Structure formats: structure tokens, C-alpha cells
């Protein structure tokens, strides 16, 4: 029983982390339909800036804030220069965002140096509680909380405002939305910035989790985020949450019970979901 709880809790927290990473992509790819291969780059920048801020100021909260600011700034620049010319054109999006991904990754090395950096958990989140044989790692509990909080906030915004609706309408027919008096460019810009900030936040929270940040982590995790968004159903935030948790739990349980397949677990999961539920777990509504 303890074993199951351990596997479950760890899988859940990993899933939450993956969700934080994928939440931004749910906005950018799922809602806005932008194939943003540079998403991982935004994520790495968040991770590095958080590590840097933490090292300089010693404040974990400031480091998270720093990452979000980085995300906002980068999101703004990315949308204006990279994304604006290619809305609605997936083929061009692939090329330009992959190019930008190279730039982002390599710029990390220019700014922060070529080496991996250690990322530390703040003392008050360090360590774990032991309840019988169940080990509850504090930082993971924190991640689970943050994950649900972020989910709640975005879901609230999407439900309570028309932003989600407008973005989906804008993707379907940009001209018509404008003709209804909505500045769709601005809505897209803000949505993209929000997505980028979420990616950065994901990076910042990921860093202490794995204890290390390195420039190449972007593409690896970027693809994972795509997997989650697609499994969940494009543009559905609850879908992404569910998919991320599924990925986390599958990884956790497979590594324990069927280690031979654990290399393939994400791919198998995605293949199964797509074959049996071609539209992903949730349809994009609300």
C-alpha cells in the first residue's frame, strides 16, 4: 500500500510538473494553433533566469518572479518578431520556431555560460516528510499545489472571460473577429505572452526539481509538452491536466512494474490514446 502511495504521489507530482510545462503550450499550440517549437527555449530561459536570480538574491520567490518576467519579455519579442509573420501557416511556423529555438538555446550559453548549473531547492521546501513508509517530498507537494493553483487560475480566466473564445474564433477566422470589433492581434499577443510566461514558470519550477539546468533541456521537454497537449485534446486545459497526470503516473508505475517498457512509455501512451480516441481525451470546449 505504501508503495502504491509513493508511486502515486511521485507520479502525480511529476505529472503536475509536466502540466506546468504544457499549460503554456496548451494556450499557444492548443488554442492559438501555433506550432511553437521554440516553446522549450522559453522554458529553458525561465529555468536559467530563475537559477540566476536565486543565486544572486537568495530569494526563491524572486527567482520565480524573475522567470515570469523573462517569459513575458521573451514572449513579447517572440510574438512580435517570430510569430506574427506566420500565423495560420504551420509549415512556416515549424521552420521559423525551430530556427528561433536554436538561437534561444545557444544564447543561453552566451549569457549563462556553456555549462550546466546547479539549481537548489529553497531550505523551507527542502527535504521530505516520512509517514510510515510513505515518503512525501516537500518540494513535490509544493509542485502539486502550484499545479492545481495554476490550473485554477487559467481555467478561471478562460471560463470567466471571453479570451479563450476569442482566440478560438480568431484561429478559425481572423478577419471576421476583427470585423466584430475585436483587436485580435492584441489578444493573440497577450495570449502568447501568457503562454511564454507559463513556460518560463514551468522551467523555473522544474529546475530545483531535477537539481540542474542545461541548455539542451529545452527540446527534450518541449516535445513532452506537445505530447501532453495532443493527448489531452488540443486547447483543452482540463485535458492537458489529465494527460500530464496520466503521463506522470504511467511513467512512475511503468518504471516500477514494467521497467523494460519505461523508455517507450510516453510514446505507447500517446499511440494508444490517439488510436482509440483520435481527438485526444477532451475535446476543446470552454
Amino acid at each position, binding site marked *: 500500500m505504501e508503495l502504491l502511495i509513493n508511486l502515486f504521489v511521485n507520479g502525480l507530482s511529476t505529472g503536475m510538473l509536466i502540466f506546468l510545462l504544457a499549460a503554456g503550450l496548451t494556450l499557444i499550440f492548443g488554442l492559438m494553433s501555433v506550432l511553437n517549437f521554440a516553446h522549450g527555449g522559453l522554458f529553458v530561459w525561465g529555468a536559467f533566469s530563475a537559477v540566476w536570480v536565486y543565486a544572486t538574491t537568495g530569494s526563491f520567490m524572486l527567482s520565480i518572479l524573475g522567470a515570469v518576467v523573462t517569459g513575458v519579455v521573451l514572449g513579447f519579442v517572440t510574438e512580435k*518578431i*517570430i510569430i506574427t*509573420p*506566420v500565423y495560420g*501557416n*504551420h*509549415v*512556416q511556423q*515549424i*521552420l*521559423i520556431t*525551430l*530556427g*528561433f*529555438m*536554436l*538561437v534561444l*538555446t*545557444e*544564447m543561453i*550559453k*552566451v549569457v549563462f555560460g556553456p555549462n550546466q548549473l546547479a539549481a537548489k531547492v529553497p531550505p523551507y521546501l527542502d527535504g521530505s516528510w516520512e509517514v510510515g513508509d510513505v515518503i512525501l517530498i516537500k518540494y513535490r507537494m509544493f509542485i502539486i499545489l502550484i499545479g492545481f493553483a495554476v490550473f485554477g487560475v487559467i481555467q478561471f480566466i478562460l471560463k470567466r472571460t471571453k479570451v479563450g473564445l476569442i482566440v478560438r474564433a480568431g484561429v478559425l477566422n481572423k478577419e471576421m473577429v476583427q470585423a466584430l470589433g475585436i483587436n485580435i492581434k492584441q489578444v493573440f499577443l497577450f495570449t502568447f505572452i501568457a503562454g511564454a510566461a507559463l513556460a518560463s514558470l514551468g522551467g523555473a519550477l522544474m529546475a530545483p526539481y531535477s537539481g540542474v539546468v542545461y541548455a539542451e533541456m529545452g527540446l527534450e521537454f518541449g*516535445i513532452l509538452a*506537445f*505530447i501532453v497537449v*495532443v493527448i489531452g485534446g*488540443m486547447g483543452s486545459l482540463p485535458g492537458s491536466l489529465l494527460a500530464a497526470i496520466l503521463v506522470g503516473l504511467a511513467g512512475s508505475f511503468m518504471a516500477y512494474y514494467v521497467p*523494460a517498457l519505461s*523508455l*517507450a512509455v*510516453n*510514446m*505507447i501512451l*500517446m*499511440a494508444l490514446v*490517439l*488510436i482509440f480516441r*483520435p*481527438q*485526444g481525451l477532451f475535446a476543446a470546449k470552454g
Partner: protein
Amino acid sequence: MSKVLSLNKSIYLIIALALLIFPFVSDSRTWTILLTQIFIFAILAMSYDLLLGYTGIVSFGHAMFFGIGAYTTGIMLDTFAPTLLYFVLSIAVGFILAAVVSFFVGILTLRLKSHYFAMLTLALSGLFLVAAEKWRSLTYGNDGFTFRAPEIFQDRLVFYLLSLGCLIAVFIFLKRFVSSPMGHVLISVRENENRTASLGFNTLHYKVIASVAAGVIASLAGSLYAVSLRFVNTSVMTMDITLDALLMTIIGGVGTLVGPILGAGVIELAQHYLSGLARDYPIFERWIILFGILYIIAVIFFPRGIVGGIQRVFAKLSGKKVKAARPIKKSVVKS
């Protein structure tokens, strides 16, 4: 119209001849190897374009076919004998394997559309990658293995000519293929699949055919690649290969056959020269940034790829369009 075409044809012919003669006038084997590499990736990129550009299928798993070819050839030359016969046989076996796999992948297009299909191919090729890593008795894991190439390919010139020959053959085949009735139906599938079906074409057939043709050609590229390196490891199955094919196609011009060839050339040469720049001028240590900027600039200035850009320039020069500001003739009907 036909004049333009014959102009095109003669340009192709001249370039093909120049490439044919090239190794005999230049003794730079670096160039021979670089060009061989370009030819191989051009074949891969063309096969990808058949999917993306002509049939409108986005695949993130093209590397699996490349990998099938590379591993088949590597394993057969290694386990049997490094002879021409086994080389040819291995290509044939690669074809069969790639055809079978791509057939089933093609059938999946029935159920899955656009992003979802793309992600499924990503998953499938991911599984192939894991298989290549895990089936060590056959693949030696991700370190891979070296093997001997047939004696005759020891001379890189011969291999250069073989690759060039394959490139030309594939180009001619695909050129005819895409301008044939079958090719035109492929394009219509890309444009509007439902309407194609309601015109009485069984679109699944076409998508499967395109998938198989692309898979088989990619496998050929993989076989050549393996022999060019005399080495195979799991890198042939990775996303990087798919992305290379994708980028070459897009940079060159989606939906054109010359595009992927040019794209392969541009990317390989840019990589070669930019990394050379880093060697000679330490300030270019981070040449990858320039490389990334190249992609960005390409999209901004050549949104339809190099070929699209060239076509535009020609259209402008010939000035036909400008005059035809309003291509309208009155057709008043008396009733």
C-alpha cells in the same frame, strides 16, 4: 508554357552534367563527400516533400523509414558479406520493410487528421528508436556498429556517382509521378480531401500510395547514408533526421521537387561553412545562432522557400501579372 518547360529541363540537364563531371575535374574529396551527403539528404527531403508538399500529410516520424533502410543495409553487410550483391539485396529488403510499415502508417491517416496524425508518427518512430536501442543483438544499441562497404565503394568517387544516380533517378521518378494523373489527385487530396472523395477518388488509396512511395524512397536514402558512413547507430532513427528532412523541404520550397534538393544543399553547406567560420574566427564560436537566424530570415524573406522566391522574381521580371491587373473579360449573356 512548353518553352519554359524545356528551359527548365535544359537547366536540370546542365546541372546534372556538371555534377557528373565535377569529381573528375576537382580532386577535393571533401567536396565529393559533402556533395554525396547532400544528394542523400536531398533524396530523403524529396521523399518527405511527397508527403508534406504534395499530399498534405505532416509526419514527424519520417526518420523511421530512413532508419529502416540504414539498419537493413548495415546489418546485412555486416552479417553476410560486404559485397555489391548484398548491398542491392539490402536495399530491396529495406524497401519491403519500409513498404510494409509505411503501408500501415498510411492506413492510419484514415482515422487521424493533421496534428494528431503527426503526433502518432512521432510516437511510432519513437518506438522504432527504442527498438533500435534495445534490440542489441542486432543493432548493438545506441553506440551502433561499423561495417565494411562493398569493395567498389571504397572509392568515394564511385559512391558519389551512385548517389548522384539515385538522386537523378528519384527526381525523374517523382517528377513524373507528381505530374501524372495520380500526382494530381494527390494534390487534390492535399487541397480538399472530402471533395476529392466526392469526385469518386478513393482518397485512402492515394494517401497510402504516397506514404509507401515516400517510405520506400526514404529507406533508399537511409541505405545510402549507412554505406556512406560505413556505420549505423540510433541517430538515424531520431527526430533530428525527420527535422532535417522537414527543414530542407521547407527552406527549399514545399510542393516543389527542386526545393528539397536546394534545401539540402543550402543547409548542409551553411552548416559546413558556418562551423568552419567558428574554427577560423573564434568570435563565431556560437555559429549555431547564425544558423538559427538563417531559418528565421528564410521564412521572412522567402516565405515560400527558395524555389517560391525564385518563381516570384521570375514572375515579376516577365511582367505578365502586372499588366493583367484585372483578369476579366466580359461575358455578357443574352437570354
